């Protein structure tokens, strides 16, 4: 840890060997409910992290452990000397491969259980160059000009959700939720905060879904709320759909390629490089600089779960037409963006 970071961490309460608590640590975001998460942590007393996940939640084993998840880091062409911050690091899918490549990583997450789990993973792998900060991203002030690299992977869209998120109780559920502040403003403030935390020439890697993912036009549900057509509708219509079917405002805003770029420019980033990815940013099989042709691309839809379904085959053909023949990347499923300060 360098001097600047050391000074920063001194302000906080040390909770375990690697985890520090920020006063603004209130909040919760997890695929698991609070109780499931407690059970998982308990399992770690007797099992390795991989065993614990296989026992407790084999469904999301790949989300946590798949090597595919961190492929986007390669776009940064890291030199090994960087100090990085992984904002919303959760179970370490990016944090751990990142720590293997750079000098030091700070992982930030509001959910303490996720950090405890990731700490156990680090110990298993013998990785020492990581510290965690248990903090809420909306309230944390990132120390000025400290980091070479910032990672915001599948996090930006969730910032406007100010109440706790237990994904199982969020996705298809009709539950009222508190809401204040314009979602875009909240996201913009956060991106500005990240920007001031980067050194001059520092880079942000942002991974997020595309609002105009071609599947959204064919009745695939919103990846965040499970509603139909909410990403592609104007926000006020999305709000009405969400109020009817989910009893709450539509908050997890995502943007088009240009929309995301505009947001980043507004937040003060100077050089924004867009990349399209298929089938999504979590497990990309193909990545291409936005607009460029990738000769090696082949449709990814029908092979998703190893099963061939009629829906999958149609999606496969649509993908082939849109991206292989016409190269309309405007409709690509996800994006990974490298933005320079």
């Amino acid at each position, binding site marked *: 840890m360098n001097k600047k970071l050391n000074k920063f961490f001194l302000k906080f309460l040390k909770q375990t060997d690697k985890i520090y608590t920020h006063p603004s640590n209130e909040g919760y975001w997890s695929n698991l409910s609070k109780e499931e998460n407690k059970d998982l942590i308990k399992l770690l007393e007797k099992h390795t992290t991989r065993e614990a996940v296989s026992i407790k939640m084999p469904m999301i084993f790949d989300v946590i452990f798949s*090597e595919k998840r*961190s*492929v986007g880091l*390669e776009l940064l062409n890291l030199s090994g000397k960087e100090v990085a911050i992984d904002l919303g690091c959760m179970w370490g899918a990016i944090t751990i491969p990142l720590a293997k490549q750079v000098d030091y990583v700070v992982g930030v997450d509001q959910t303490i259980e996720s950090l405890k789990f990731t700490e156990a993973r680090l110990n298993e792998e013998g*990785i020492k160059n990581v510290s965690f900060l248990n903090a809420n991203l909306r309230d944390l002030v990132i120390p000025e000009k400290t980091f070479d690299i910032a990672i915001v992977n599948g996090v930006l869209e969730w910032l406007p959700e100010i109440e706790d998120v237990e994904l199982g109780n969020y996705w298809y559920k009709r539950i009222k939720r508190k809401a204040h502040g314009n979602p875009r403003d909240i996201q913009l403030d956060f991106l500005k905060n990240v920007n001031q935390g980067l050194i001059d020439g520092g880079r942000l890697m942002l991974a997020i879904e595309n609002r105009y993912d071609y599947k959204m036009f064919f009745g695939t549900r919103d990846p965040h709320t499970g509603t139909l057509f909410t990403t592609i509708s104007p926000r006020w219509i999305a709000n009405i759909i969400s109020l009817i079917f989910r009893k709450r405002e539509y908050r997890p805003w995502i943007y088009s390629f240009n929309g995301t770029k505009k947001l980043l420019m507004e937040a003060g980033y100077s050089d924004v490089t867009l*990349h399209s990815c298929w089938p999504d940013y979590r497990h990309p099989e193909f990545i291409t600089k936005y607009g460029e042709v990738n000769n090696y691309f082949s449709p990814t839809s029908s092979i998703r779960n190893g099963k061939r379904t009629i829906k999958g085959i149609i999606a496969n053909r649509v993908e082939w037409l849109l991206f292989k023949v016409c190269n309309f990347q405007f409709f690509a499923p996800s994006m990974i963006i490298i933005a320079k300060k």
Partner: protein
Amino acid sequence: MKLITNSSHGNGIYTFINENDKLIIKSSSTKKGITSLKRELLGYKWYFNLENNKNYKSFFYKVFSNKKYYRLSVSLFKGEIGNSNLSLSDNYLLILNAIEHYVSIWPKKKNKFVALHGDFSVGNIIYNKQNVVIIDWEHFANNCAPWGFDLVNILYESAFFSMGLKNKLSDRNLKCFLLLRNKISEFLKDVPNFKCSLENLNDFIMKNEKIWGNIIVKLPVLKFTSKQKMYIKEIENI
């Protein structure tokens, strides 16, 4: 930077192509992946040091690594990477050129085992008119296989992917198969105890599982069904 494969067969290796700097970049942060990449570099070095390899002048590589991460960048050669989804007849010329390339460079040693590429397939060949470059040396091993093993592998792997619904090759594919097989058999004449047959190929792989490790279950040439095997035996006797 274009991602073209992401941890295929769960090997933990990312493959990017950087067209601006003309590089193939492979990287990994898993133990398995790092071991494979180190092996790949050995393979490349062996291959480009061969006396008759015309391409050696334009080859260079760069490694960035620490204990837990490895990134290997090697030069990207002009040309197209073969498409293993195409049929045997569509890939006929490419395979023919690959065979000639192999024969012209691969050193023969009397009664001794030679180097092995281990995954010599259409998808691992860059071709540009007549010029052929072999890539993807993750399974490279030296002094461990009979000369020509890789040739037999590319033939049967292509045959596997060309098998029709009735577990047979179409007439066109069959014709190409026989032509290529005759050619390879001729080159194998002076290699003891190894012939151009599926049985020989499978036997050798099964006896030397170690070379392929976990990947062995994914090898196409081991995936022929018993019906297909019967058919292959039939056409081998034509």
